[in-house]
């Protein structure tokens, strides 16, 4: 049997099983593997190194500089160490729950990368409930934290886990309301369309520039989203669930070796995920001001196939990742700058400040959309100045 026959036979089987042929099946699996295993996990690992270097800069010391040039292989050494460490489980721990808890956390953090729009042509799954799906998976993470903490048979873990679950669950509401205001303005939940509408406003075009500059309410909503995302990821100033100085190690006290590594990795993946979502829905995703990247035409071809989509995608991914990197840097900056909030201050902040403010911002954004028919501040200024 020749290779062509084998492939066509495989194609028929896959067509029958999946309803689509070999290319889509391969694309589906490959995109999951590439995004999760080759992008998110290494990026999470490198983030640990970057965080230590940034911490060192803030604290005026050097940081890791032994392993590899400038210490850049430190994260691989750490990963290898954690992989080879003994996996101790307390005698009275609940075996089954202890084993399945990390799965919920990683499913929530890594799985939501399916809807992140890296470029106009590269998105894992262009669901028409994009942001809603990402929020749904975020709620799985709080479940994983609670289960892992409870199964550890340790008072510190249980306290940390319950506080963690209460915190992550409370801050989902300002998060949801901020996302809801974006959905109100753009009229779509699909991440691809949300980014597409944030193009530079041109005459007759759909774009209204970045959502964060759409109207003053959205500007405040961006900060509410950012604060709520910090609380969702258990980052300072909201890292009470894993408070190093109070609760030993909070909900992951009894997790050692790679299990702890998975929790830490999924925490970084969560940070990167929320940075990606914030970039996509507030900061314009892969759009640059003044340029229209989707019509970038350098005229390069290979034979008859135009290289335009590839070049456009590369530039778009570059823009997107730059914005994500900026937001992740700000998250790390905050970690080494701000003190931790007490648990009642944390809850007060959510229920008494963020939720009322985001309610009123939602109403304000809706009124603005209604009165100005969805036009942004920039478009209105442009109309007044007669530019378009």
């Amino acid at each position, binding site marked *: 049997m020749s290779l062509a026959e084998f492939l066509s036979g495989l194609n028929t089987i896959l067509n029958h099983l999946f309803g689509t042929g070999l290319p889509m099946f391969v694309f589906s699996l490959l995109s999951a593997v590439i995004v999760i295993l080759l992008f998110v996990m290494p990026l999470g690992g490198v983030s640990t190194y970057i965080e230590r270097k940034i911490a060192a800069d803030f604290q005026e010391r050097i940081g890791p500089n032994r392993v590899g040039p400038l210490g850049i292989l430190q994260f691989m050494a750490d990963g290898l160490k954690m992989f080879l460490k003994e996996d101790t489980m307390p*005698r009275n721990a609940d075996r089954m729950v202890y084993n399945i808890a990390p799965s919920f956390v990683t499913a929530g953090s890594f799985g939501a990368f399916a809807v992140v729009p890296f470029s106009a042509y590269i998105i894992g799954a262009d669901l028409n409930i994009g942001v809603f799906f990402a929020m749904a998976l975020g709620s799985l993470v709080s479940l994983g934290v609670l289960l892992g903490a409870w199964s550890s048979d340790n008072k510190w873990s249980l306290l940390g886990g319950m506080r963690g679950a209460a915190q992550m669950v409370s801050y989902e509401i300002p998060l949801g309301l901020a996302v809801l205001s974006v959905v109100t303005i753009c*009229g779509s939940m699909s991440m691809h369309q949300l980014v597409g509408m944030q193009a530079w406003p041109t005459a007759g075009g759909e774009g209204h520039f970045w959502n964060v500059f759409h109207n003053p309410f959205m500007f405040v909503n961006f900060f509410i989203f950012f604060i709520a995302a910090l609380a969702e990821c258990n980052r300072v100033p909201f890292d009470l669930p894993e408070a190093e100085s109070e609760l030993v190690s909070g909900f992951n006290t009894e997790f050692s*070796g790679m299990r702890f590594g998975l929790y830490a990795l999924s925490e970084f993946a969560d940070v990167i995920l929320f940075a990606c979502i914030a970039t996509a829905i507030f900061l314009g995703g892969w759009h640059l001001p003044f340029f229209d990247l989707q019509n970038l035409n350098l005229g390069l071809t290979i034979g008859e196939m135009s290289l335009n989509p590839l070049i456009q995608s590369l530039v778009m991914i570059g823009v997107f990742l730059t914005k994500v990197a900026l937001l992740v840097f700000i998250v790390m900056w905050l970690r080494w700058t701000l003190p931790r909030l007490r648990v009642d201050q944390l809850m007060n902040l959510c229920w008494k400040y963020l939720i009322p403010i985001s309610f009123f911002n939602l109403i304000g954004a809706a009124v603005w959309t209604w009165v100005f028919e969805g036009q942004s501040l920039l478009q209105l200024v442009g109309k007044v100045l007669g530019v378009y």
Partner: protein
Amino acid sequence: MLQEFGNALSFIILAAILPPVILILGSFFRPSFPHEGKLTSYECGELPEGSAYIMFNNRFYLVAIVFLVFDVEVALLFPVLLLFREAIEIGGPSALQVFSLAFAFLGVLFVGLVYEWKTGDIDWVKDASDRRDVLLSHEQQADGRAS
């Protein structure tokens, strides 16, 4: 549309399978020397005292219930506010209809939030009244020493 779901599902399944696969793979390389000290729960170097299951603390439960109500509200507002822009373009009373219904829904629950705020149910530390017995015993001790 099902194809997109399939893609999203493959992401979720891959992510959920990852921890067991990594841990099982590592079990071939990891040492395993269970020892009494390693198997007991960590309590800052002391032997663990008492059961690890703490007493009922109803503020967690209350936060969870209030969250549940607002979560349902946010989830139900999504499909309604999705239409807002479309309703504006259609013109006429449909935009007013969407706006008023959505924000009446929001307003009803906001009234609930305000009520909770005013009666102090939303405070994490409820007026320090559950600390009053602690404060009282301190006062008693101070009085005992003074007199």
